[in-house]
């Protein structure tokens, strides 16, 4: 019974840090993805330098292994959260890791929007913000939704890794209570919970993405 309570508690922690990281990374990553689309050579505001430099930063950030990133930014985490250990502290590296991922995934979704449609809307006299809102975001919505699922699953995976470094949640629970104490059953239970969360997430988002897709 106590195990069940602990697992539930750890699940709650995992969902909490993943959700907060997901929301913040989209608040920053999606605008970056839009910026990448707008500044590309055939975008609404072609700016080669901005696009290239931004692309480099995004790719460099993405290529740092999560574990290393987490250690490297400990001072930042401590400055933002007041501590570098615990569930809330893990939000900082998780978010930082997800931002460039979100930027690229969103950029890919937005790239699928037909260029002819954008030109047709330009010829109607649409303002750039109207094109971003009504054409880019609206036309790419099903694809963007699938991107959210992809990001969320990635964050949950990394959150388990953060657990290894005292991040809290299911990963931390599996390592401290299971692995270190040679309790393999507990490790398996924890992994199963993560698997169930991931499957539920993917199924729900696939369903939503299909439901809101009117292109077929």
């Amino acid at each position, binding site marked *: 019974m106590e195990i069940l309570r602990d697992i539930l508690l750890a699940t709650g922690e995992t969902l909490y840090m993943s959700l907060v990281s997901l929301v913040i990374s989209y608040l920053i990553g999606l605008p970056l993805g839009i910026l990448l689309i707008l500044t590309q050579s055939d975008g609404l505001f072609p700016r080669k330098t901005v696009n290239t430099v931004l692309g480099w930063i995004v790719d460099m950030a993405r290529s740092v292994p999560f574990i290393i990133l987490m250690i490297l930014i400990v001072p930042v985490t401590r400055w933002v959260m007041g501590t570098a250990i615990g569930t809330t502290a893990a939000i900082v590296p998780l978010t930082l890791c997800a931002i460039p991922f979100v930027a690229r995934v969103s950029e890919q979704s937005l790239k699928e929007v037909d260029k002819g*449609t954008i*030109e047709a809307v330009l010829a*109607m006299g649409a303002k750039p913000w109207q094109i971003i809102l*009504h054409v880019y975001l609206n036309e790419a919505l099903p694809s963007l939704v699938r991107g959210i699922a992809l990001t969320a699953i990635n964050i949950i995976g990394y959150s388990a890794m953060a657990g290894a470094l005292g991040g809290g949640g299911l990963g931390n629970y599996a390592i401290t209570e299971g692995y270190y104490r040679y309790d393999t059953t507990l490790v398996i239970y924890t992994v199963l919970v993560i698997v169930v969360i991931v499957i539920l997430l993917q199924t729900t988002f696939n369903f939503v993405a299909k439901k809101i897709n009117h*292109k077929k």
Partner: protein
Amino acid sequence: MIVLSNLSKTYAQQTEDNAALKGVSFEVRPGEIFGLIGKSGAGKTTLLRILAQLETPTSGYVDVNGVRIAGVGKHGGDEVKRQLGIVFQNFDLLMQKTVEQNIAFPLQLRGIEKHERMRRVEELLKLVGLSDKAKAYPAMLSGGQKQRVAIARALASDPSSLLLDEPTSALDSVTTRSILSLLKEISEQRKVTIIIITHEIGVVKSICQRVAVLDEGNVVEIGSVSDVFTRPQSPMTRLLLGAKEVTDFGNPS
């Protein structure tokens, strides 16, 4: 009245000899149905893109009802954009919006309030004969129906001119005939000037009053359809007339 004066367009990779447009001048009179015909590569698309303000001419200008559009750029010139309703070749409808949302879109962009938008949409749906498809998504429509939605959308802002790029190239001959008669009806009822860009001589023959023949960036012949097609002066016109069996779409009424 649309006036094109000495319009030239040389793209970056072009020399002046093979420029897309080499000083094109003509005017389209209010209320007429004007055809612009030419083979692919004649400069039709460039001309359309300049009129749509997606491209800036290298030299020359375009006046739409006395307002100059050349040089406005793709983010400006709202008033002229309102005056010119454009139907692009691939319809370019918003796939994630319903038929009525698509038609209302140009009005929404201008901040017209919802009640007024819906009133206009209802009227336009009736005009193009798609009142029963208001809530449908474009993916559920046939090519002809998509074309009707695109025409209704182009008319939403009450433009003085309607510009259509290859409006029939994706359609079968029966659908083509019905779209052409719709255009004729629009021209007669609404006194809208219609410009049709096409490579199909049958389209020009069946509904246009005047025609300009475009060849290698020049207007090689312009005049009334009967004059130009019965006494063609330029080799290109003769080529277009004789190149292949001319599909006669009849005289839609």
